[in-house]
């Protein structure tokens, strides 16, 4: 059952080939048996899952159940789950049990999906390797000495290892697309404002966006149908009808204009990765798409701009973790200053502290204009680059990240090398555009990701293109050894 896609599982449940309880039990058993090798899941909610599965089976028997009814999924541990510990991968929230659901969690609950548990992640979503998690690193199912990517490394590894058919994730600078690429699965970061951020613990509020991870574009479409909604609890959520993303995935892509930015194929790109991506573009050309050379001249500025804006916002967003109201509090504080200092020094990991310091510095009196002000200007330039490109093309494609999964510790001493992992993904966050990654080849027995960047609210077209590619290829069907 674990090799079936969500679309296939939905048909199986509806035709009573198996029940949701059987399906749920199957994945719970896989998590119990296999996850000790990957560390992808922080919290397993077996009892609640089985109860929800039984309820889903009743709804299915009664007919008229929503599409995702009875389908097991995992939530990234950044989404607040009512009554279930939500850690955000941090010691700071190791004891935090929210009394409310994130809107994304609520949407899946309404749809009857079954939550198996919460996935591991870089602490407060800050990282590209899942090495910053308080709960230890996640291992890449394709090569357990390699990272799964981050920050949604737990969700990506869990889907790749078939511990769940789909998982929720979030993307601030590439946190859905890069781990999807490194783990050989399909992931979509929607347009900023498409998915509610309510109950999604903030890293950088103007960049954060939740999205689905699954093995196919078709499954991502099914999940996005559930995740995307207008939510008046999130002022940055955009009030706009949610199309049926499943309805258009079978459309022909004849005549589709694909922009290929020269900046995404420059030095630093692994030759094997480039080859796989070029082959994918050629396949789409065969299907009738037209490749158009374009330029996104300010791409090189996106990483420095991002590493000002994101830490600046994070430095304020993480101020609430002060040991006063909830979460970690240091032992026996002597006074208020000591309470703050030790709680935050002991509760936050090194990377989180580094980014709080960077952000605090960038916003300081006398430095604001040179850093934060400048970065916002760069952000506008990047938006203009994309706006100009989308006058000529329908989608933009290139590699998701410069190379396949790297070994643990190989970039640990060099934060800047780690930050460059996101060089192809960050610009879309700065522009608020949707982006996705899907598997398109292998290098050194490790998956390569093809990135699709769409125009605002053009997720349906992106999913359609990805689906057509997956109809003609089978990279998305590949599984790590022993996991089929």
């Amino acid at each position, binding site marked *: 059952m674990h090799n079936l896609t969500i679309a296939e599982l939905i048909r199986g449940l509806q035709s009573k080939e198996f029940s949701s309880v059987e399906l749920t039990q199957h994945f719970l058993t896989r998590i119990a048996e296999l996850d000790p090798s990957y560390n992808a899941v922080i919290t397993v909610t077996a009892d609640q899952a089985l109860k929800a599965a039984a309820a889903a089976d009743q709804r299915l028997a009664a007919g008229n159940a929503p599409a995702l009814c009875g389908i097991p999924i995992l939530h990234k541990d950044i989404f607040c789950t009512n009554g279930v510990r939500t850690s955000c991968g941090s010691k700071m929230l190791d004891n935090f049990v929210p009394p409310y659901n994130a809107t994304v969690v609520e949407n899946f609950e309404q749809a009857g999906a079954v939550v198996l548990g919460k996935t591991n992640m870089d602490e407060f979503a800050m990282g590209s390797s899942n090495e910053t998690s308080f709960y230890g690193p996640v291992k890449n199912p394709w090569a357990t000495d390699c990272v799964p990517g981050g920050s949604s490394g737990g969700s990506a590894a869990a889907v790749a290892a078939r511990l769940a058919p789909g998982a929720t994730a979030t993307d601030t600078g590439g946190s859905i697309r890069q781990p999807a690429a490194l783990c050989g699965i399909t992931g979509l970061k929607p347009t900023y404002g498409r998915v509610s951020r309510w109950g999604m613990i903030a890293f950088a*509020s103007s960049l954060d966006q939740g999205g689905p991870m699954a093995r196919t574009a078709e499954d991502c479409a099914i999940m996005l149908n559930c995740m995307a909604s207008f939510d008046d609890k999130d*002022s940055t959520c955009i009030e706009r009808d949610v199309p049926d993303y499943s309805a258009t995935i079978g459309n022909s892509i004849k005549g589709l204009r694909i922009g290929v930015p020269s900046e995404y194929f420059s030095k630093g790109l692994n030759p094997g990765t480039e080859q796989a991506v070029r082959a994918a573009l050629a396949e789409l050309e065969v299907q009738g798409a037209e490749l158009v050379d374009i330029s996104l001249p300010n791409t090189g500025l996106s990483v420095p701009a991002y590493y000002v804006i994101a830490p600046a916002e994070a430095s304020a967003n993480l*101020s*609430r973790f002060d040991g006063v109201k909830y979460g970690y509090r240091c032992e026996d504080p002597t006074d208020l200053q000591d309470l703050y200092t030790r709680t935050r020094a002991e509760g936050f990991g090194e990377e989180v502290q580094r980014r709080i310091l960077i952000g605090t510095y960038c*916003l300081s009196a006398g430095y604001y204009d040179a850093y934060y002000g400048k970065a916002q200007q760069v952000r506008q330039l990047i938006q203009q680059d994309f706006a100009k490109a989308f006058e000529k093309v329908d989608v933009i494609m290139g590699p998701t990240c410069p190379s396949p999964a790297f070994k643990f510790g190989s970039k640990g001493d060099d934060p800047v090398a780690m930050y460059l992992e996101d060089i192809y993904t960050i610009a879309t966050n700065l522009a608020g555009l949707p982006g996705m990654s899907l598997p398109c080849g292998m290098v050194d027995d490790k998956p390569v990701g093809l990135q699709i960047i769409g125009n605002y609210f053009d997720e349906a077209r992106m999913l359609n293109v990805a689906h057509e590619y997956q109809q003609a290829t089978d990279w998305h069907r590949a599984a790590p050894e022993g996991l089929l």
Partner: protein
Amino acid sequence: MDSMSDWDTVIGLEVHVQLATQTKIFSGASTAFGAEPNTQACAIDLAMPGTLPVLNKQAVHYAVMFGLAIDAEIGKESAFERKNYFYPDLPKGYQTTQLEKPIVGRGNVEIELADGSTKNVRIHHAHLEEDAGKSLHEGNFRHGVSGIDLNRAGTPLIEIVSEPDMSSAEEAIAFAKKLHSIVTSIGICDGEMSQGSMRFDVNVSVKPRGSDTLGTRTETKNLNSFKFMEEAITKEVERQIDLIEDGGTVIQETRLYNGDTKVARSMRSKEEANDYRYFPCPDLLPVIVSDETIEELRRNLPELPDARRARFADQYSLSDYDAGVLSSDAAMAAYFETATKTSGNAKLAANWSMGELSARLNNEDLSIAKSPVSAEQLGGLIARIADNSISGKMAKEVFEGIWAGEGDADQIIEARGLKQVSDSGALEQLVADVLAANQAMVEDYINTDEAKRKKKLGGFMGQIMKASKGQANPQQVNQILAQKLNELL
């Protein structure tokens, strides 16, 4: 020699006004005052992870109304920023406020001084922000422990920032009172100073008389009564002058004034001041106020104090002074108008509202909203005075009865048998009886020189009032008595 007249005082105010919305500026929690600690703080107010702010539209409208009331530029696109600092009663670790793009721009407030002159105080801007919670320290809380009450956290505020246009405590108080009058008149604040609904930060500096160079200023924060504000300014001006005349220099610092102990102290100096690291709040969109909304709010703006004052003088034939006193406070103005309507007598309603009622409220430290005597009840009492049912002396007794909760004027008059006798037939009989029973006094009156007779009248009055148990209408008795005695001459 210390001489105040050698120095100019320069004062600017920052005024925090709590807006009278039902719910908080970014959450649905109630803003009602006085609830059990932390019972009016929801997940958003507690800054629980993943929670997000949603702007209260009413708070925006109230801020715009204030801008319209002071004839200010309205920020059609204003924006919220985060002001970062750590404090336990600031749950998010930042205050959501406005800096670069406030909702209210430059405006003007005219104040009136005791000598009858007027002065314009310029408003630099007013911006929307959220209030913090309250820290309860030792003395107000358990021994050795500080408590946090987040009920107030997220209450909407406008912070009004004046230019340094005031040059004395008197002017500063007049300005503060005028702002109080404006915000209560347009209904955007309940004006309850003792509950912290309006709080004043006072910036004070001194400079040699006539100098163009401003001195170093200090800021005394969080004054919540006009009296404390006056004391704090007076003391600070004296302190600065003494300091400079003794060869010292004023340092820029934040100060606190304790109104109970009358002691001011330094809180922190500029060197210790926070770098608040303001930046635009990414969780909130820019606030757009359309021309239609502005025009609608302008059309529906309640009467402003200056307009009301002119109307009171005109409509009720009040003196300029009375009109000023009655119109400055919206609740007082409404009270007076209701009492006038109920009684049909504006002059008496004005006298009683400003006299007996205000004195009693002051004594018991009550606001007019909390008055035990309602405007309708006072109106009912005044009606009985106006129709001569009771004397002024009786009225005071009836007023006390209403205050004590014994009922309306008519009920008390009835219950205490206080009705004044104004029936002229009965009064004539009463006067005749008293004269008949006091022949000696009558003889004495007749034999007294005409010039001195008037003095003798009091004796008769006393007897007559005594005989009527105080219920005879004194004016009428006076007339009848004079007439009857005349007839005997």
